[in-house]
């Protein structure tokens, strides 16, 4: 298994947000995580990436129970094993496309400029590597974010509404790119979305509302 959740519970200010008795996601899977608003989609990704800790239960990612890791080790684990693509891209302004990708490597403790260039070429931005985010279109910014997420050859790529800020055509190409690059590397892809057209392009769709029984 790539990801396994057992008896996971998470509440904010006493309000239960997520409750998953058991969820196993195989290695290399490409899954859509969906659910009604407030069903805990983003919380689910934050738990799997180790950004949040569950109130109860275990989360095993790539063979490691991340709920047992101290915070600094979880940070390192996230840098090395998990790539994240956000709805709002979350590129650092003032840094070029190339520097944003290299930043993804920095916290995993390495610097590989040729790989950064190769990744940008792979996402179709060979000629844009020295451009800063404000000089790129939203679609190009999301491509940079994908290249950054792949910087450390992650075992798992988490995408939180990756097409939420894109027009349908650009969104389609971004989803296609995500599926392609993850497929090439055997990377597990979990894509949170509520957009039907995105869901249609995936075989496996998990509804957190059903899973949590809410």
């Amino acid at each position, binding site marked *: 298994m790539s990801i396994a959740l057992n008896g996971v519970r998470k509440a904010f200010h006493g309000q239960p947000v997520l409750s998953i008795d058991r969820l196993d996601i195989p290695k290399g899977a490409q899954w859509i995580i969906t659910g009604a608003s407030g069903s805990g989609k983003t919380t689910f990704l934050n738990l799997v990436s180790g950004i949040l800790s569950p109130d109860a239960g275990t989360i095993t990612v790539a063979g490691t129970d991340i709920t047992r890791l101290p*915070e600094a080790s979880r940070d390192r684990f996230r*840098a090395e094993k998990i790539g994240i693509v956000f709805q709002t891209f979350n590129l650092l*302004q003032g840094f070029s496309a190339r520097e944003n990708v290299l930043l993804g490597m*920095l916290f*995993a403790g390495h610097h590989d400029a040729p790989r950064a260039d190769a990744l940008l070429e792979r996402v179709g931005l060979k000629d844009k590597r020295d451009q800063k985010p404000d000089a790129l279109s939203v679609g190009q910014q999301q491509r940079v974010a994908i290249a*950054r997420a792949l910087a450390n050859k992650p075992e798992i790529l988490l995408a939180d509404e990756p097409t939420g800020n894109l027009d349908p055509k650009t969104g389609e190409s971004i989803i296609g790119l995500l599926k392609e690059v993850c497929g090439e590397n055997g990377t597990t892809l979990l894509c949170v979305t509520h957009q039907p057209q995105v869901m249609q392009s995936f075989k496996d769709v998990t509804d957190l509302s059903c899973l949590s029984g809410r």
Partner: protein
Amino acid sequence: MSLWKIVLKNIAQRKLSSTLTAASIALGVAVVVAVLAIRAGARSGFDQSTFGYDLVVGGKGSALQLVLNTVYHMDRSQGNLPLERYRELAAHKAVSAAIPVAVGDSYRGARIVGTTDAFFSAFQPGIQGRAFHEGAFEAVLGSAAAAQTGLKLGDAFQASHGVEAAGEVHDERWTVVGVMRPTHTPNDRAIFITLDSFRHIKDHRETSGLSAVIVKTRSPGSALQLEYDLNQRPDCMAANPAAVMAEFFSKFDWIPLLFLAVASLVVVMAAVSIFVAIYNSMSERRRPIAIMRALGARRATVLSIVLMEATTLCAFGVLGGLLLGHVLTAVAGSFLTARSGIPFSPFAVRPEELAVVAGVLVLGALAGVLPAFKAYRSDIADGLSPSS
């Protein structure tokens, strides 16, 4: 990509704020450096040990005036010393050299000193040309005096009576036979003529005494005893130039301290402005910090970035301050050298400066502690939420 690159980009993104903050640090450091350098330069310049004068003997009056007039060619002569005292000193067993000095004339602002070749024998200054011959109307110029008056070897000049305002021009003419190489002492600003020719001037013929006698003794102990003995006499006084100048400076110690206090205040205010600038920027940095944390940056890493930023900003200010401080020292030093002949080394780095650099950098780092702690405590999920 490195943490330093992130730090420099953060600083560059707030150009105006960063520049003003670094400039205020630079201003404070520059004043501290300049005050330290000028104080040290003035002290070492006035340090009599570099001159080789053990005692200065003159008529009764102020020890400070005697030293300033005889050694630094400043102020006025305070009266005559009987010639017998000079003869007595020259023959004294504890004295290795007694150099008579007669002053009161000048040429184009350069003071004229009547003396004997004992001056050149005792202090061995390098001379382009030669020393004067006793009894001749000949002159040897200090290097700065040569530049100031425009006189060259072989030129002739007429002295004026008085040292501060051009007075009556004497009839006698002196020929320049030598120019001293720079000695980095006030003697560079003086013109030395033979004592005989000085006393030959019509206005000076009725004056029987000397302005002062410079004394070199055979041992420090004998200088102390001689000073004591001479000060018991009713018609003369002796002063140790080093002791007189040390006492003089001790009266003005509060001035550099006042400057240092003001400059320290400027540096502290600049450190506060670093704190304010970084602290105020923390709300707009919530998202970048959260992004870095989501990418795997540890809390300690973002803490380091903010601390490095505060320290780097401070380091820029310190570097600018060191440069500006030494330029200020060079400007002030050249003015003081022109006025007093005291040499300055404006670009010499003093140990106190290293302490200032270390102190200001620590202050800068401290200014970053609270914002850094705020970054340390920031929550990733909150920082990434759309409202952030």
